[in-house]
């Protein structure tokens, strides 16, 4: 935590963090087509949380994240693993990409796919892993 009274940083963090998180989701979703992807997005999100951590300290950041970053690792890994298996149902080798085009009302087509699920898993793992490390270090120091 910074010294109390740095309202400039407080406010900036409150503004920047949502922006960064939003941007990270953007990077995640379009990573298949433009620079980005789960890893980059995850790092951006982790950067956002780290900014929050530096500004408000570990406890507040944990509160912000709601999920314990260690759980996030597990969830991320699990989601990543989930993308491995659907191919088996089609009799294809593991990790074969499955695409499920979903027609939204209005004619827009959204493609849900195992690579996307995988990327989400990557994203969550990266956020979880990075935040686990950074928060643990900060807590060790704050005590």
């Amino acid at each position: 935590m910074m010294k109390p009274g740095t309202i400039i940083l407080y406010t900036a963090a409150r503004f920047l963090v949502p922006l960064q998180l939003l941007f990270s989701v953007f990077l995640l979703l379009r990573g298949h087509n433009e620079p980005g992807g789960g890893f980059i997005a995850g790092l951006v999100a982790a950067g956002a949380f780290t900014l929050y951590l530096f500004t408000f300290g570990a406890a507040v950041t944990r509160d912000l994240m709601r999920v314990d970053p260690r759980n996030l690792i597990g969830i991320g890994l699990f989601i990543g693993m989930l993308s491995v298996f659907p191919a088996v149902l089609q009799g294809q080798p593991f990790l074969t990409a499955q695409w499920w085009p979903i027609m939204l009302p209005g004619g827009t087509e959204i493609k849900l796919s195992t690579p996307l699920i995988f990327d989400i898993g990557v994203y969550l793992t990266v956020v979880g892993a990075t935040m686990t490390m950074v928060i643990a270090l900060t807590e060790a120091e704050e005590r």
Partner: protein
Amino acid sequence: MEPIMAIAVGLMYAAAIYMMLRRSIVKLVIGLMLLSNAANLLIFTSAGMTRGAPPLIPEGAIVPDGIVADPLPQALILTAIVIAFGVLAFAVVLIHRAYNILRTDNLDQMKDTDT
């Protein structure tokens, strides 16, 4: 460009090894970081460097227009960067803990498990 990069990467390896041979564990970690950067650049260089042609397929096309940079080494390096990040984060915290417990940052004083 590649010959210059070859020299640069060579020097980075040299710097990395030099740092790793110091006594201080902090320098050791910095050496490891340099080493991982250098290795990534080595892959990047030896696979060939291309200017201004990122491996992206433009909207509407199904293949990139013209020659693009080889995407495979980029993917490999990306993986390597991430792995190095994890490993180095571990190493950084390790030296932190090692210092806290051993009360020294001097590698030459860490001989107990061997002798």
